């Protein structure tokens, strides 16, 4: 299934959000997630399934002004 991860076309082998994050080697406790520009809270992750074409934003803290 092809989805978009942080702006890049990406082939993933699962539709489960947690599995995707793990397969892409994100550290789950250090990122936050939006799907199609909607926030997906951490407590929703266990049951959250991604669909083909979905746009994932996986963000981490950085410096800011």
């Amino acid at each position, binding site marked *: 299934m092809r989805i978009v991860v*942080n*702006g890049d076309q990406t082939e993933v082998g699962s539709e489960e959000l947690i599995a995707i994050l793990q397969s*892409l*080697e*994100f*550290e789950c406790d*250090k*990122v*936050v*997630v*939006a799907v199609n*520009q*909607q*926030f997906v*809270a*951490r407590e929703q992750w266990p049951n959250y399934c991604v669909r083909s074409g979905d746009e994932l*934003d*996986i*963000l*981490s*803290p*950085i*410096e*800011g*002004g």
Partner: protein
Amino acid sequence: MSDPWNVYGTTLESRLFLGTARYPSPAIMEEAILRSGAEVVTTSLRRQSPEAQGGKSIWNRISSIGCRVLPNTAGCRSAKDAVTLAQMSREIFETNWIKLEVTGDEYNLQPDPYELVTATEQLIHLGFDVFPYTTEDLVVCQRLHELGCDVIMPWGAPIGTGKGLTNPYALETLRDRLPNTTLLVDAGIGLPSHAAKAMELGIDGVLINTAVATADDPVSMALAMSNAVQAGRLAYLAGPMAQSETAQASTPIVGTPFWHSQPREKASES
């Protein structure tokens, strides 16, 4: 002098908020924050590739300092994006505070008064403590205040310009018309004199990033800004002299020597 103040229920001593971007190194950033005495620092969220763990070291550094974090929504162009980013920030930074930025123009990077108000309304409904970054427009600020913002952050000048306060008259008006709102000047401060002037006008605090981070010596500049903010605050409280158009001697006039006019007869001798 202790002069604590309250920001959304949190008591602070320092009136200088510091940004964490654009420093030569994380170590210098840390030292600048410590030297500035800032109790609140700003952060952001960005897309991260898992391999390039670039941001991690700086975030670890920031979080280790123990300051309160004020995440921003820098880069958002719509209320919708800003609200989503704010929600993500709340989860990862574990704070209700959000510095709300919704950019309305790519050139001067100024806030969009329309999207800003829309996002503010939604975020307050979602339980956030909103710090809206806004122009100095009084009516926009009044609207933000009416929506429930206890804190409003008018700009001094466009971000990164270091031009200081381009419209001090408007800031004075804001202070007069919103006497019970916490006002922080955000963006545009380039020199300590700019920060001091903002505080002299009765502004409650300032947020500075570029002027500290891009100085040749950010650590010294951090201390300079801290001193300036204290100076301006103290002056505001101390009741400054009124400006005058005409000169007045400070040294007493009475008894000035060498007065060559006709000597007076002493009263006692007449």
